[in-house]
């Protein structure tokens, strides 16, 4: 009998930036349940730290950012290969389209549920280590 053994790929690394720290434990546990390795959760963006960590997935709460699109452009330049997911209280579709154009891979809005968050962060067939 021949057994083909393929090495399990390493878990994807995720970072969370969210000023509403009350909700961060929930976000961390949700991503971890999907097999993501949450390596950092912080209330503010620290570019140097993010560049060092180089997460595969970056989840950013944008409601507290002064200029979210400017910040997003900077993050995209900093992490060209990362999947950047924004979440917001705003249901403005036009803003979401703009954010995608500037570099977001997905925008999670007020009516989106946990399944939407998961599929935004971990698209089908992209889960690693699970």
């Amino acid at each position, binding site marked *: 009998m021949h057994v083909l053994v393929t090495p399990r790929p390493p878990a994807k690394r995720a970072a969370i930036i969210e000023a509403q720290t009350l909700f961060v434990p929930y976000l961390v546990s949700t991503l971890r349940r999907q097999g993501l390795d949450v390596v950092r959760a912080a209330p503010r963006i620290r570019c140097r730290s993010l560049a060092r960590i180089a997460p595969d997935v970056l989840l950013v709460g944008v409601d507290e950012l002064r200029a979210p699109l400017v910040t997003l452009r900077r993050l995209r330049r900093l992490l060209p290969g990362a999947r950047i997911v924004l979440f917001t*209280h705003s249901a403005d579709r036009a803003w979401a389209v703009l954010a995608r154009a500037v570099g977001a891979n997905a925008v999670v809005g007020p009516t989106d549920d946990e399944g939407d968050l998961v599929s935004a962060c971990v698209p089908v067939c992209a889960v690693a280590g699970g």
Partner: protein
Amino acid sequence: MNLTTEPGNPSVPAIRDSGDAPHIDMSTAQVRIAIIESQVLFAKALAGIFAEDAAFVLAGDFRTPPADGVLPGAPDVVVVDLDGQTVDVAQTLAGCARACPGARICALSMHLSPELMQRCLASGAEAYIVKDISPAELVRAVKMVAEGQSYVDPRVAGGLLRKRSANGGKPDIMELSVREAEVLKLIAEGLANKQISARLHLSEKTVKNHVSRIFSKLNISARTQAAVHAIRSGIV
């Protein structure tokens, strides 16, 4: 309102007299809590936080206060996230009060704003909680409110005091007697009339009289407004 318990039904809170606001004896009863949060994900996060503590039972989870009618589940405490609500703070809180008669209201916000805190307290909220705290701190704050106390984020209260100090203004608080000022200070600390009477060695009736005179002199009608006056004037 007198002390009422419902033997054999632990889910029905024991309510005791707190002077003017019913509150829950958390040693014997669960707190029915309603969540009003516009963001579905964060509503789930809040529900999860309270579900982990046996002191709470979820009465409902809503996106906005209803335009009319009463929320089901007869909540004891309403936790409402003001961020993402589409109407004015006062309107949102009035909607909560109308939809949940008798419930105590905790306002959540992302803003460390003394002005917003004042508006919330003046609009009937018993707590102003900023969302950069931990889940454990939220639970502690909501328990305080359920027990009949008030809660304001100490950083915001500090900002209010500094502002008042910078203005040098002590408005109508000067009209209070020394004893009334003492009572006001204790109201601002969240004590009920019974607790104040014990602390000051006065009868409860006397404390009630002091509270009435304080309300009259300050032209207010609620203990939360009294707390705002106390903070504004710098006596706490």
